[in-house]
């Protein structure tokens, strides 16, 4: 039995910034009982408390595990650098915030990985827990190190540091893992039993145990990834919860005592997205679309507001305006709230006037800013990335917003996209200027903020074969925009550091050989790499050189269709040939309509798991072009063409014959 570290910790807290990050005590926090027959999980977010606390995935698992009689879950976050130094000085390990139990006393330490740049924090947390950072060096008595979250669709760069990886939705599989660990705990964790447990875990659907696979190389390339044992599956499929209605979590969302990001009630209205934006990993790996019943959404909102005391609720999903019956849910939320002041946030606005109408309904007061994500500056470029928004959609949305009292627009764009020309890049500036001009019809000083991020190709997307733009090229494109927007009234330009984009690119599509790079950066003190004040570009380049890994080869090289990708033995349900075809279509500037209201493209996500989209309405939401390229009046139906999927005319010098190499920069 372990003793709470609180008495030692409380003497240190007066010396650190924001000590409330370390006390727990949130409304909804649990203090579960630990014991012999109880599997203890330490759910850890490898970043600062204020970033990690709101994470919904972690909160969902926290409740599900604690509802079990045979399991207990607590939470941990990265101590900030000031406390970390004190912990090391006083030899105090990483601790849970719920009961301040040492991390090493838990059976499982499970991390949510939402961003590649937190990988060095993952190593830091394992080390602060007093656990060897390499899976192979761990003893039977050490906690199991597990990871889940979007980054784990390519866990190869961190394969050496983790014992198991969960692919996809965690709601069901977390119980199956608990049962295996409980049995193992019951047998007293005898010598060598850890390896047997890992082998059992590898047979659980959705669980990938990297140590059960051997990677062989053919020069720089991967030759194959093969299971070490006959009973270990050759391919690990993701887990998908078919019916969101069965999982109305979190039921008791944590209400922090101190400031965090997204400090409001969150209700997930659907999971998955079939808009098919080709740059978007989240949309690809979370298919199919599974809506929560509108009635349950209402209940979760009203119960959640009453329980938490929040005055704001965010309806979360990858594209909330696409939720069937969104208007009804919002209308009812506003009227249910009665005289209490409640505002509704839609974190992902679709770009059309209809969506702005919804926003107008829910933001009667506080109309300050709205955010849209056209993602690319020209219609050609948006067809390439399949973000099928017409300029008219954007102008309609912006005009509607300005005319209804909003003054500030924020527009998100990506640069460094496949086939992007300077004309496409400068299209961003043109769109922004036109939006500002629309604003001046309604306000004296409207503002448009353009936020440009460098594109990082992600696994399980059609762009997984694309060579990422170099730092020089991304900087040049940002420079073009800066120059072009210099005298543009009312337009501000913000951009993401291309060097951080490169570091993300290294980890995004790396293989197991990247492990030594991540370890090098961590050993040299490179933690909190998501924070610009801590990000250390030179350290990443130094680590790549020291490990003999070539940046060009890992990041900037176009892959070919016969290459074995580091994540080919894992599956998000998507057929690789679907992704390849989508990549070819992309280069041919061919858009692909949303499959919720067009025939199936057989991407594999539904058929492979025997599930279908769960949507209350199979007709597209009203307004905007909805990717059809034609304006649809309110309530109009999208023309559906049955038959073969559209193909580009294949004339001699047509787009189909565009060679793959030489794409982009």
């Amino acid at each position, binding site marked *: 039995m372990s003793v709470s570290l609180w008495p030692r910790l409380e003497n240190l807290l007066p010396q650190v910034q924001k000590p409330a990050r370390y*006390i727990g005590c949130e409304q909804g926090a649990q203090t579960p009982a630990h014991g012999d027959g109880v599997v203890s999980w330490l759910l850890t977010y490898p970043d600062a408390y204020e970033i990690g606390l709101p994470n919904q995935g972690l909160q969902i698992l926290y409740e599900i595990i604690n509802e079990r009689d045979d399991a207990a879950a607590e939470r941990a976050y990265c101590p900030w650098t000031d406390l970390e130094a004190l912990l090391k000085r006083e030899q105090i390990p990483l601790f849970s915030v719920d009961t301040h139990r040492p991390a090493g006393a838990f059976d499982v330490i499970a991390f949510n990985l939402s961003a590649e740049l937190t990988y060095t924090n993952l190593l830091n947390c394992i080390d602060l827990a007093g656990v060897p950072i390499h899976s192979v060096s761990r003893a039977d008595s050490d906690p199991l190190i597990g990871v889940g979250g979007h980054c784990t669709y390519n866990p190869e760069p961190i394969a050496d540091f983790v014992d198991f990886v969960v692919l996809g939705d965690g709601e069901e599989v977390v119980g199956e893992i608990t049962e295996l660990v409980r049995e193992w705990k019951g047998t007293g964790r005898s010598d060598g039993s850890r390896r047997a447990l890992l082998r059992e875990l590898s047979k659980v659907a959705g669980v990938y145990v990297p140590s059960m696979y051997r990677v062989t190389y053919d020069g720089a390339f991967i030759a194959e990834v093969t299971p070490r044992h006959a009973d270990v599956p050759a391919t690990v499929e993701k887990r998908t919860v078919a019916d969101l209605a069965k999982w109305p979590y979190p039921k008791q969302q944590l209400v922090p005592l101190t400031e965090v990001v997204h400090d409001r009630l969150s209700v997930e209205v659907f999971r998955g997205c079939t808009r098919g934006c080709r740059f978007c990993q989240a949309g690809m790996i979370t298919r199919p679309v599974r809506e929560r019943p509108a009635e349950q959404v209402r209940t979760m909102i009203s119960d959640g507001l009453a329980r938490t005391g929040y005055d704001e609720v965010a309806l979360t999903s990858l594209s909330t305006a696409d939720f069937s019956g969104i208007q009804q849910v919002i209308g009812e939320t506003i009227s249910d709230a009665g005289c209490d002041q409640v505002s509704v946030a839609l974190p992902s606005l679709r770009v059309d006037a209809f969506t702005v109408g919804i926003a107008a309904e829910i933001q009667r007061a506080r109309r300050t800013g709205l955010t849209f994500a056209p993602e690319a500056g020209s219609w050609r470029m948006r067809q390439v990335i399949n973000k099928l928004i017409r300029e008219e959609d954007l102008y309609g949305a912006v005009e509607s917003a300005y005319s209804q009292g909003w003054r500030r627009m924020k527009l998100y764009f990506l640069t460094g996209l496949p086939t992007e020309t300077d004309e496409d890049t400068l299209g961003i500036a043109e769109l922004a200027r036109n939006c500002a001009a629309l604003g001046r019809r309604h306000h004296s000083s409207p503002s448009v903020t353009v936020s440009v991020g460098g594109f990082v190709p992600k696994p399980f997307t059609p762009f997984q074969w694309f060579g990422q733009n170099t730092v020089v090229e991304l900087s040049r494109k940002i420079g073009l925009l800066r120059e072009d927007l210099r005298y543009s009234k009312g337009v501000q330009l913000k951009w993401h550091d291309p060097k951080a984009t490169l570091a993300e690119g290294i980890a995004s599509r790396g293989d197991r050989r990247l492990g030594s790079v991540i370890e090098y950066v961590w050993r040299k003190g490179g933690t909190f790499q998501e924070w610009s004040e801590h990000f250390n570009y030179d350290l990443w380049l130094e680590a790549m050189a020291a490990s003999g890994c070539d940046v060009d080869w890992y990041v900037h090289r176009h892959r070919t269709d016969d290459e074995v990708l580091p994540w080919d033995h894992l599956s998000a349900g998507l057929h690789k040939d679907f992704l390849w075809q989508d990549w070819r279509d992309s280069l041919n500037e061919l858009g692909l309509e949303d499959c919720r209201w067009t025939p199936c493209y057989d991407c594999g996500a539904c058929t492979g798991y025997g599930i279908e989209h769960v949507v209350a309405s199979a007709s597209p939401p009203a307004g905007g072009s909805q990717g059809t390229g034609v304006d649809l009046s309110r309530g109009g139906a999208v023309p559906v063409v049955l038959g073969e999927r559209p193909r580009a005319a294949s004339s001699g010098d047509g787009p189909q014959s565009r060679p793959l190499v030489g794409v982009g920069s």
Partner: protein
Amino acid sequence: MRIRIRFTKHGKVRFTSHRDVARIFQRALRRAGLPVAYSQGFSPRPKIAFGLALSTGHESEAEYLDIDLDPERTAGLEMGDLPARLSNELPEGMAVTAAVIIDRRTVSLQQAVTSCTWQIDVVDVDANTVAGAVARALAAESLVVTRERKGREVTDDLRPGVLSLDVEGPVEAEEHGGSRVRLLAELATQPRALRVSELLGALDPPLVEHRVLRLHQWTTNETDARQRSSPLHAAASALVGAT
């Protein structure tokens, strides 16, 4: 309708800031379903007013908060239930110990409170040294400190703000760490609030706080400055709960 409540802050929650406490109360009031009045305008805010800020890390027996209620929705509100009702919605370590209805013309907490009583534990120092430092401070005519304010050096005499200072003696420390000596101090809050850390830093030798607990906040009687009372007594037209 305006009410004034007294609440405590003990244990782990002492590491929340003054701003955090404001946020905690906003949510607790909503959860408890109290008909709090909101300000008008584009971003309506609940009408609540806190007294003197308590430093992050300090505990308290006596924090105060004024809350405006919407008079149209206060029918059936039981003042007697209010402390328990609100305490239920507060984190462990925070509890509402009294609530009274006050007149809307009551002077604000910031203005009304003139001094606070503090229990201060210092560590790694023996009782004799502490007694010497206290005696020297009390005997001194002035305790001048220089501090930086808005980029300029300002000198301040802390001595007039020290209304009383006593050594209670060594106390048993339940946790590890050296010996603890407990002080009791009444420090003025007008014209500006004298902070515990400022006072300890100005002693000779300077002392370092380990645990600090605010025991009381005092208001002075308008007619007789020697008579002091709690902000509840001073303002109450109906008094409920422990006092």
